[in-house]
């Protein structure tokens, strides 16, 4: 009994300790970000691996999710004779929620895990130590560019995801269901507000991008320098990112929907 409580205490302290070191790690990244902007080529290379390489999965999933939401929405809306508002349903659910969240989940598993594995393997093969010996700060040379690449790519990918999703909904509406395209767009235009919907969704995707990048780089940097350690760190990145994104989403939505 006492042991169980003691175990819980150890877990709590460990979790708090990890959170604290993650926050310090974030501060360190910010302090060492100079080089990722002065030598922007480093960041560009990482944007290529984190962002451009994720384009296909993000755009295809966006298209399909938009189409599915359209079809499912139509199924229910036609009971009320409101199938013309299908576009509004698709656009609002994508721009406000699905776009940022699903993109973040995909991004964490597609790019976040890769970042963790890369940094973890660099640590396991002592490349980071070698850099340190050559008076190159691995924080500035390896970690910060990857962090910024993730933070920049994520909002771009989320915007593309939402756009593709709305396009998918449009395809379903006009080709499959037979809603007039003019009605579709005018309903969309009337219902989607720039500040309330588009900007809030953008803010969400920026926050998620920053969170995923911190977690991915931290787990990589913190990994045990063994094959098993890297594997565990990669798994932890995906799990922690997914949970953090969903929790942050709840908090952000609570703040954003307050008031009218």
């Amino acid at each position, binding site marked *: 009994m006492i042991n169980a409580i003691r175990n819980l205490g150890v877990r709590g302290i460990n979790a708090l300790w990890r959170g604290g070191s993650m926050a310090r790690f974030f501060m360190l990244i910010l302090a060492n970000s100079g080089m990722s902007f002065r030598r922007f*080529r480093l960041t*560009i*290379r990482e*944007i*290529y691996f984190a*962002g*451009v390489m994720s*384009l296909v999965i993000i755009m295809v999933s966006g298209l399909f999710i938009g189409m599915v939401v359209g079809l499912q929405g139509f199924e229910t809306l036609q009971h009320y004779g409101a199938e013309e508002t299908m576009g509004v349903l698709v*656009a609002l659910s994508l*721009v406000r929620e699905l776009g940022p969240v699903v993109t973040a989940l995909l991004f964490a598993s597609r790019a976040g895990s890769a970042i963790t594995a890369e940094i973890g393997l660099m640590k396991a093969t002592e490349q980071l130590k070698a850099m340190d010996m050559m008076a190159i700060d691995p924080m500035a040379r390896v970690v910060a560019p990857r962090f910024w690449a993730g933070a920049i*790519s994520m*909002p*771009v*990918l989320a*915007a*593309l995801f*939402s*756009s593709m999703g*709305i396009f998918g909904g449009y395809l379903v509406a006009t080709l499959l269901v037979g809603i007039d395209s003019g009605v579709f*767009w005018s309903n*969309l*235009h*009337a219902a*989607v*507000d*720039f500040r309330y*919907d*588009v*900007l809030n969704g*953008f803010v969400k995707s920026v926050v998620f991008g920053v969170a995923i990048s911190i977690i991915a780089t931290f787990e990589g940097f913190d990994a045990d320098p063994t094959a098993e350690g890297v594997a565990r760190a990669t798994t932890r990145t995906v799990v922690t990112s997914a949970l953090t994104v969903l929790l942050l989403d709840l908090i952000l939505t609570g703040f954003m929907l307050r008031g*009218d």
Partner: protein
Amino acid sequence: MDRKTIDLWVGIFMLMGIAALLWLSLRVGNLGEDRPSSTYSVEAKFTNIGGLKAKAPVKSAGVLVGRVSDIKFDNDKFQAVVILTVDGRYSFPKDTSASILTSGLLGEVYIGLEPGADEKKLTNGDKVTLTQSAVVLERLIGQFMFGKAAEGDTTAAKK
């Protein structure tokens, strides 16, 4: 992968992202909606505004001519004070009447302006005196039921 190809792809990636954001805010959102350059505000008092909200459209003959900018409560007369911001391109006679309408049975609530015949025009800060409150559906149904019941009484009495 050679450096120039990476640069090119990242450039295309960023451009696509910016294009998607612009598209979301202009085409899907309402950022591109042309804001009238000059506006004037008029005030209208209603005994009941129903479900009217700030930013609701103001229409005349079905055309959007302005928006509701503010809704307040007048604690002296116990009435709702609605500030309408009307596009400066349109002017209305002084005896224009405002009524709170609903598009469709469940649609959005808006304010309809019915122009009068006065020679003078409404200007900034003017008050619209002829107003018609929102129709509250529950009250209407209540009145209908009450009327039906009363009708039933009279027919019963005749028998």
